[in-house]
């Protein structure tokens, strides 16, 4: 980095301040800040998966302010501290402004023509010499749907490799696996509207207050108005979310499956199960997928009585019983979870067991009841899950293994169906291992920072260093740019139009209000022009506008469970998003799936719906599945050599690898560095005082870091926020992954800690 950190921060702040002016909208106050000269543009926040509406304030050719969108039904004008400073990110000192190619070890500014010709030539050489599977794409849940769609077509449809992944593999894949195996189709049945109808919230593996603050605000608002509303938290660590908790269960990290089973045991034993709902809507299966009876399931649960679960998880049996009774007695219940459940080697199973509680009690398909997964990125659902941006998927919740799906997509893409391989490509960890092994020789990385965000990150630097790496990114430097051969400057939020699809199935349009900084270009056009240079002119030259891409994409969703064919740009520009299915332009969007009002439910034959309030149409008989999954431990349990369970996570003020939030001086000042949280009892035993420098060590690496002695983690647990490359928590995390979802276990690693 050419600037020292302090100089850099000062320069960054100066640039941001110079670019921004204040506005004053309080009537009667002196209006000295030109509010009337500002034009406001409806958009969507760039950070987490909540999907908050924001208004971009523009004066002249600058974005000068941001405010929450009062008309947006998600956030109703509220924004969190990250969104509050979003406009400053545009003018970050760290924006990548020009294409660059590494020559003799140094990045040299080049023209777009030179950069794209070079990438096209190298990719074609690799493809011809080693075949299409020697190339790969690694994208992002922050990319727009249109951008991911173009990459999907280029790599799966034209180059002919399914080595196409995205960082949602690292955050949401287990939720996908849970929804598919339990309910039959991906993504939640309900929406945020359920919050205001819920009597009980089960927040498990989610620090909602810091990671989804606007959703937390809605929960708090609802609880304030309705004091009977209860909140249960299951998490090995206290967080700010605890301030509203009625009950907190603290399982040992990675051992919470037994707790969920024990809750199910109590729910059935004490008569809280909805036997009529179960009879009409639920099948039971064992871990091998074979049908079992309700009685056999109950017998299975005898291994997970509260007392047995206490021995496994460390949670007192009495508290498990209390939680189960609260869940059973509540008229409605909404579960919410995120990385604490998903980033696990048994993430899919943990998801299944949450669904189990809702299916056993019938707390699903009615207002206020839903197992509702929270998404980490703004377009992980829209662009990657729905858009098919993973190695086994195709657009519109389709699969590469399905011949009909391949034919449908190939026809719209205008490519021979034989181009799309019938076998899934390499999932994220396998992809980066293949880079290490030299089996993949060229990779295009877009809008993400794997050199910092992969688990056991240092293991994968070898491949990034040795193979041909193209990085399309809005910021420089990043941990990944250190390994790139070519840097392509990408337009940032507000400099491009497109669609984001958030946690609640809502797709929202974002306008372009600025010209991209420097020579940055929209990722979709970079991909289009690269494709044309690689020889796919016929397939790509037809795309002239973002709407061209969106229209083609939504045509592929027609008739699919996530039908967006009625969500045209014309509509999306006017409304605050639409929740699919939206099968026609006059359809208002769907609040709940699998019930009356869901267009797919409504058009089912009457004999199928008879006597049933839900029909899970992704399952052959319309019945969801309660799974009897064994309570497996984490991949790396603690032992005498590594007696602590290390877990990683986030803070309110920063996001992911800090590329955006660390460019905002106020946020950087708020939390300027990483630390390790250790319980006071553990610290005392080890002679560690607050602010001591300590070494945290796992079987993979060591990290020198400041200790924060605090009673947030339980004794035996350590916590490190992962946003800083200088204190890279992923040197310590394990790259073991869920065999179903392939999502790594960021949340549990055996560690030891000692004074530096």
């Amino acid at each position, binding site marked *: 980095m050419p600037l020292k950190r302090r100089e850099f921060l000062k320069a960054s702040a100066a640039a941001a301040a110079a670019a921004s002016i204040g506005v004053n909208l309080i009537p009667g106050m002196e209006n000295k800040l030109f509010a009337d000269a500002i034009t406001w543009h409806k958009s969507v926040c760039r950070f987490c998966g909540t999907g908050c509406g924001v208004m971009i304030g523009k004066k002249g050719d600058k974005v000068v302010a*941001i405010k929450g969108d009062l008309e947006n039904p998600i956030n109703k004008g509220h924004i969190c501290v990250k969104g509050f400073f979003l406009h400053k990110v545009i003018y970050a000192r760290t924006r990548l402004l020009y294409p660059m190619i590494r020559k003799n070890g140094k990045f040299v500014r080049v023209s777009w023509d030179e950069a794209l010709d070079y990438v096209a030539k190298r990719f074609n050489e690799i493809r011809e010499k080693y075949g299409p599977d020697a190339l790969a794409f690694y994208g992002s849940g922050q990319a727009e749907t249109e951008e991911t769609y173009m990459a999907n077509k280029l790599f799966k449809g034209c180059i002919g490799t399914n080595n196409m992944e995205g960082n949602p593999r690292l955050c949401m894949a287990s939720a996908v696996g849970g929804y598919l195996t339990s309910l039959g189709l991906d993504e939640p049945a309900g929406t945020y509207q359920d919050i205001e109808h819920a009597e009980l919230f089960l927040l498990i593996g989610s620090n909602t207050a810091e990671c989804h603050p606007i959703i937390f605000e809605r929960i708090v608002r609802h609880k304030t108005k309705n004091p009977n509303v209860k909140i249960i938290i299951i998490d090995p660590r206290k967080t700010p979310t605890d301030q509203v908790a009625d009950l907190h269960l603290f399982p040992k990290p990675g051992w919470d499956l037994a707790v969920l089973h024990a809750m199910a045991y109590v729910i059935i034993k004490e008569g809280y199960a909805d036997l009529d709902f179960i009879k009409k809507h639920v099948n039971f299966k064992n871990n091998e997928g074979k049908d079992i009876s309700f009685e056999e399931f109950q017998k299975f649960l005898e291994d997970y009585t509260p007392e047995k679960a206490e021995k496994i998880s460390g949670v007192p049996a009495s508290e498990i019983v209390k939680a189960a009774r609260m869940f059973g007695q509540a008229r409605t219940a909404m579960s919410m979870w995120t990385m604490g459940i998903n980033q696990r080697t048994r993430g899919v199973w943990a998801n299944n067991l949450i669904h189990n509680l809702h299916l056993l009690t019938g707390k699903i398909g009615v207002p206020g009841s839903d197992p509702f997964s929270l998404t980490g990125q703004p377009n992980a659902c829209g662009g990657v899950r729905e858009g098919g941006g993973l190695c086994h998927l195709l657009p519109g919740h389709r699969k590469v293994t399905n011949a009909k799906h391949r034919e449908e997509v190939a026809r719209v893409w205008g490519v021979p169906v034989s181009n799309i391989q019938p076998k899934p490509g390499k999932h994220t960890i396998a992809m980066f291992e293949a880079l290490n092994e030299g089996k993949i020789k060229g990779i295009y990385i877009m809008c993400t920072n794997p050199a910092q965000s992969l688990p056991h990150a240092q293991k994968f630097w070898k491949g990034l260093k040795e193979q041909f790496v193209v990085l399309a990114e809005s910021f420089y430097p990043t941990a990944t740019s250190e390994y790139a051969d070519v840097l392509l400057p990408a337009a940032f939020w507000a400099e491009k139009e497109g669609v984001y699809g958030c946690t609640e199935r809502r797709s929202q349009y974002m306008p372009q209000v600025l010209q991209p900084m420097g020579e940055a270009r929209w990722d979709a056009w970079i991909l289009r022009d690269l494709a044309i240079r690689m020889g796919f002119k016929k397939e790509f030259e037809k795309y002239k506008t973002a709407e061209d891409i969106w229209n083609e994409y939504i045509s592929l969703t027609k008739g699919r469970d996530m039908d967006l064919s009625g969500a045209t740009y014309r509509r999306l520009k006017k409304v605050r998003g639409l929740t699919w299915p939206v099968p026609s332009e006059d359809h208002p969007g769907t609040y709940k799936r699998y019930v009356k009002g869901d267009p797919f439910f409504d058009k089912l034959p009457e004999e199928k719906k008879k006597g049933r309030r839900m029909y899970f149409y992704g399952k052959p008989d319309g019945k969801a599945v309660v799974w009897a999954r064994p309570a497996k431990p984490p991949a790396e349990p603690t032992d005498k050599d590594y007696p602590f369970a290390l877990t990683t996570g986030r803070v309110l003020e920063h996001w992911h690898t800090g590329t955006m939030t660390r460019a905002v001086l*106020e946020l950087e000042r708020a939390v300027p560095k990483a630390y390790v949280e250790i319980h006071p009892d553990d610290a005392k035993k080890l002679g560690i005082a607050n602010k001591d420098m300590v070494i945290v060590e796992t079987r993979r690496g060591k990290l020198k870091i400041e200790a924060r002695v605090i009673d947030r983690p339980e004794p035996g647990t350590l916590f490190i926020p992962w946003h800083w490359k200088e204190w890279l928590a992923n040197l310590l995390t394990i790259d073991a992954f869920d065999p179903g979802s392939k999502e790594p276990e960021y949340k549990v690693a055996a560690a030891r800690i000692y004074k530096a």
Partner: protein
Amino acid sequence: MKHHLVTLFGVFALSILLIGLSFALPEGTQGEQHPDVDFDVSCMECHAEETPDIFSDWQGSKHGFMNFGCYMCHGDGTVDFEIKPSTDKCASCHGGYSVDFSRLNVNSCFDCHPGHTLKLHQ
């Protein structure tokens, strides 16, 4: 419990999350100098030691309860810094409220709502 929740909700509704309208100071309003900033510690860590009374007040306030840090009102301490934050900055978060100062005997939000001990109409 209800009181606790009302308090908590007030913090959320009126501090971090409400009707956000974010801005930075226009050029020319800088000038108040913060002592050299140590970029290895956060604002809060330093002020807990240097100005413990103010820190303690803030920590007990609704702003502190929600970890609504120094930087939101006082700026980053380098380029953007105000010892006494302007009322304009209140509008950044509380822009959803209509306040007609011509009908009041005060000129600033802070005349009624001191930021470090913010209690908001209780």
